[in-house]
C-alpha cells in the first residue's frame, strides 16, 4: 500500500496519516530526528512537478487534515486545514454564496496545501491574480516539527515578514503548510462563458488582447490550441450549424458580475469577436461552473509525456503559442494560455525526444520566459534541472533551504538546483 506513494521510482518505507496539526508536528519531528526524508502528499495530482527526489523514506499523507478551522462569512475570511480539497472548501463557502476566487486543476482531489505548494492554477487567475494573492495567513510545520505561523486572519497585515509567500510554489521543500487563511469573495450573480473559434492564433491573438486590455473586465481570457481545441471548435461549430478550420484555435472568455453588467459584457465581447473575424462563437451559461475549465483543463488519458509551463508577457503569449504549435511534436499537442496573466502551458503526448524538449524550451526562452518542465519521462528528469536556469536568485534559494531544512528532511533534491 506504500506503492501508491511511489515517486520517481522510489517507494517509501512507511506512510503517515496525521489527523491533526499536532500529529503532523510529531510526525515531522520524528522523521527529522531519524535523519530520514519525507514527502508531503495532498491529492497527488501534481506530484510530477519538480526535480527527481534524492532521498525518500516516509510519505506524509495530508488528507486527514481536512477541516475548516474558522469561517467568518461577514468578514470574508476562511481558515482551513491544508489537506482539505478545493472542491470541499468551495462547497462550504457556496452555502453562504461565497467562493475562493480562483480555480485549480482537479479540484475534487487537489488539496489546498498541494495546490498552493505547486502553484496549481486555473484560468480565473488572469483577472484576480495568482493563488498567492488570496492567502492572508498560514501556519507551517517546519522540517524539524516546530509549529510556526505568519500573517493572520484579517485581510490586511504587514506585521513581520510575509512568510507564507515562501511556501507558495515551494513544493513542500521548506516546511509543511498546515493551515491557510484566505480572503474570500461573493459568488457573482451571473456567469457566462463566451467560447469563440478562429482559424489562426493570430486572429485569436488580436481579439484576445483587445478583450484583455479593453473595458470588458472579464474574469478570464483563455486561449486553447492544439488537437483538442480543433475537436471542440468542430463540435461547437457543428452545433451552431457551421464549421471550424483544421487549425482552429479557441478563445474562452469568462464573464461574471451582476446581470446587467454581464449582459453588456457579453454584447461588447461578441462585437469585438465579430470585428476580429472569429469564425464563430457560442455563449454558454456559467451557472453550472466554468465550462472554461472542462474545455481548457486536463486532457483525457493517456497522460501527457511532456508538459512545460512558462509565464511570459501577455503580448508575447500568442507568439509563443504559435511557435509551440508549429514546433516539434505538434501533431499531439494541447496548449492552454491564460492571456491576462501570460501563463502558457503546453502538453505533449508524443515520444519525448531531446529535439522536442530543446525546441519547446527555445520557444519559451525566445518569448522571454523561463521554461519550467512540469512533466517529463524519468530518464530526462535524472538528467536535467526541470526549473531551468534561475540565475543569481538560486543562491538565495539554496541558502533558504539551508536555513529552513538543513538536514534535507523535506523532499530533498526536488526543488530548483536540486536543493
Amino acid at each position, binding site marked *: 500500500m506504500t506503492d501508491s506513494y511511489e515517486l520517481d521510482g522510489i517507494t517509501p518505507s512507511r506512510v503517515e496519516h496525521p489527523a491533526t496539526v499536532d500529529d503532523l508536528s510529531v510526525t515531522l519531528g520524528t522523521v527529522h530526528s531519524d535523519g530520514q526524508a519525507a514527502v508531503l502528499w495532498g491529492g497527488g495530482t501534481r506530484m510530477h512537478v519538480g526535480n527527481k527526489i534524492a532521498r525518500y523514506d516516509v510519505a506524509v499523507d495530508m488528507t486527514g487534515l481536512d477541516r475548516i478551522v474558522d469561517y*467568518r462569512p*461577514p*468578514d*470574508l475570511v476562511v481558515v482551513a486545514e491544508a489537506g482539505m480539497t478545493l472542491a470541499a472548501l468551495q462547497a462550504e463557502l457556496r452555502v453562504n454564496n461565497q467562493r475562493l476566487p480562483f480555480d485549480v486543476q482537479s479540484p475534487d482531489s487537489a488539496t489546498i496545501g498541494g495546490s498552493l505548494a505547486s*502553484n496549481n492554477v486555473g484560468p480565473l487567475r488572469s483577472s484576480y*491574480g*495568482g493563488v498567492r*494573492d488570496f492567502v492572508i495567513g498560514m501556519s*507551517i510545520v517546519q522540517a524539524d516539527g516546530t*509549529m*510556526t*505561523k*505568519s500573517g*493572520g*486572519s*484579517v*485581510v*490586511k*497585515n*504587514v*506585521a513581520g*515578514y*510575509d*512568510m507564507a*509567500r515562501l511556501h507558495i*510554489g515551494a513544493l513542500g521543500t521548506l516546511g509543511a503548510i498546515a493551515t491557510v487563511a484566505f480572503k474570500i469573495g*461573493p459568488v457573482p450573480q451571473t456567469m457566462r462563458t463566451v467560447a469563440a473559434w478562429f482559424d489562426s492564433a493570430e486572429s485569436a491573438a488580436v481579439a484576445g*488582447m483587445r478583450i484583455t*486590455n*479593453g*473595458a470588458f*473586465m472579464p474574469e478570464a481570457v483563455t486561449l486553447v490550441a492544439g488537437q483538442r481545441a480543433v475537436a471542440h471548435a468542430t463540435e461547437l461549430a457543428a452545433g451552431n450549424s457551421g464549421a471550424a478550420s483544421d487549425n482552429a484555435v479557441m478563445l474562452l472568455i469568462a464573464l461574471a*458580475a*451582476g446581470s446587467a*453588467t454581464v*449582459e*453588456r459584457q457579453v454584447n461588447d465581447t461578441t462585437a469585438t469577436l465579430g470585428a476580429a473575424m472569429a469564425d464563430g462563437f457560442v455563449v454558454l451559461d456559467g451557472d453550472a461552473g466554468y465550462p472554461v475549465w472542462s474545455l481548457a483543463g486536463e486532457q483525457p488519458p493517456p497522460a501527457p509525456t511532456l508538459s512545460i509551463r512558462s*509565464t*511570459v*508577457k*501577455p503580448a508575447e503569449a500568442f507568439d509563443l503559442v504559435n511557435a509551440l504549435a508549429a514546433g516539434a511534436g505538434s501533431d499531439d499537442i494541447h496548449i492552454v494560455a491564460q492571456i491576462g*496573466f*501570460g501563463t502558457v502551458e503546453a502538453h505533449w503526448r508524443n515520444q519525448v525526444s531531446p529535439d522536442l524538449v530543446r525546441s519547446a524550451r527555445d520557444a519559451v526562452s525566445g518569448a*522571454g*520566459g*523561463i521554461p*519550467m518542465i512540469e512533466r517529463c519521462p524519468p530518464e530526462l528528469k535524472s538528467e536535467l534541472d526541470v*526549473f531551468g536556469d*534561475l*540565475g*543569481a*536568485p*538560486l543562491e*538565495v*534559494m539554496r*541558502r*533558504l533551504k539551508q*536555513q529552513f531544512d538543513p538536514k534535507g528532511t523535506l523532499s530533498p533534491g526536488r*526543488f*530548483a538546483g536540486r536543493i
Partner: protein
Amino acid sequence: MGQGRVPVNNRSCYPRYAPICHPEPMPEKSPLVRELEEVVEPSHVVWRPEDLLVYEYDGSIDRNNPGAVVVPASAEQVSEIIKIARKHDVPVVPRGAGTGLSGGAISMEGAIVLALTRLNKVLNIDKENRVAIVEPGVVNLELGQAVAPYGLQYIPDPSSQSACTIGGNVGENAGGPHCLAYGVTTNHVLGMEVVLADGTLTWLGGETREVPGYDLRGVFIGSEGTLGVVTKVAVRLVPVPEAIRTMVAAFSSVEAASETVADIVASGVIPGAVEMIDRLCIEAVEPAFHPGYPEDAQAILLVEVDGLRETVDEQAELVEQLCRQHGTTDWRTAEDEEERETLWASRKKALGALGRLAPNYYLIDGVIPPTRLPETMSKINALSDELGIPIANVLHAGDGNLHPCILFDSRDPVQVEKALVAGGRILEMCVEVGGALSGEHGIGLEKQGYLPLVFTDEDLDAMARLKPAFGAAGMFNPGKIFPTDEQREGVPHATIMQRLTVDMVI
C-alpha cells in the same frame, strides 16, 4: 562623532528638550566617507553632524542619528556603496521619502542612510502588457501621473502618495484607500531589481507575472529595508475604470457608521474604497478643505465604487440602501471630478489638517475584522475619555484597518506617556479581536516590542532566518522589526518605557 557604529542605546524619542550638541568640535571625514566619496560625488555624501540632522527622523515619533548619508545616482553606485559598507562592517538603511510611520528609515547602530531619491525615473511604460519599470525614488503620485495618459493606473494609493516613493511602498508593502477591492503593494509589484548584501545586482520576480522558484519577490516586499536595496520596480498597471462614483454618507454616531461598513463588507459588494473619518477629523478638515460635511455629523463614510457603468449603478444603489438602513443623516454623490477631488483631499490630507487641533499626533495602524468595528470604535472612544487624551479616527474602514490618531503636545511628558500608553492599548484591542498589529505602516522601531503579542519565539525565529538566507545578517536596517530580548519578556510596558528614553526626561 565618528562614522563607525554608535552604541545601540543612542536612540531618542521626539522631541528633545536640550539642544542637540555634538561633543567633537571639529568633525573629520572617516575613511568610510572618503571611500564613499570616490563612488558618489562628494556633494551627495553627507557626514557633518549638523547636516545629518535632516536625516534623523522619518514620519514616526522616533529619531536617531545616522552614521552618514549617501545619495547615489544609479543601481551600480548602490552596489559599490554596499560593498564599501560591508568592508567597513557598517550597516546600511535604505530610505525613500522618509514618510514611514514606524521608524523604518531611521538609522540605528550607526548605519549609513542610503537615500534613493535621485533614482527617480519612470524608465518604461509598456501599455500593451500593462507594466511599468520605475526607479525606487519615483513618487507614488508621479507614477500615477506618468501612466494616466495611457489610460492606466497604479492601484496602491497611500494617503501620503504625493510624497512617498515606490521603493518605500515596496519596503512597507503599503496600502491605501483603493486597496480594498484591488489589493496592496504586493499584489501590484511583479518584480524588483535589488542589490543584495554582497553587492550582487539581481531581479527577484520580473516583468512577467510569475517566475519559477521560491517567491523571493513576495518575501522581500514588506521586509522594511532589512533584506536588500530595491533599485528598480516592475509594477502592474490596470485600466482606468470606465465609471467611478464617489459617495458621502453622514452618521450621527461612529457606531452607526461602523455597522454600515460591516454590512457593506458582508453584503459581498466590494467597493473600490470605504473610508471613515470621525468628528474630530471632520472639525479639522472642514475649515481646511471645505468638503461641506454636515455640522452635526459624528462620522462620515466616503465610499467609492468603480468599474463598468452597470456595476457602478448596481453597487452604488446597494451602498445607498445600506447607508439609509443605518440612518444616514445626509447622503450625497459627488457631482463632478472637482467635487470628487475635494472629497478625497479631505480624506487623504486629514492627518495634516489635524495639526490644527494639537501640536503632535501619534498615528496608530492596526487591523480588526470588519464585524468588530462597532465595538472597537466604542472602546477607542472610551479609552480617549479614560486617559483624557483626544483620539481622532480616520480609517480604511472596509479593510478594518484602523488609524486612530492620538493628539498630544510633545512638550508635556505626561501627555507623551499617555499617547504611548493609548497606542499600546489600542494594539492590544486589535489583537484581542483576532486582528493584526499593522495593516500597512510596518513594524520598524515602533512596534517591535508588540510582536510577541501575536508571534511566538518560534514564529519570530523562523522569520529571522530570512536575513541570513538573503546574506543580509547584520547588513541592512539593524534594530528593526524583531523585538529585543527585554521586549520579548515584558510587553508592552517595557516597550513604552524604552521609547521614553533618557533624552525625554532630561
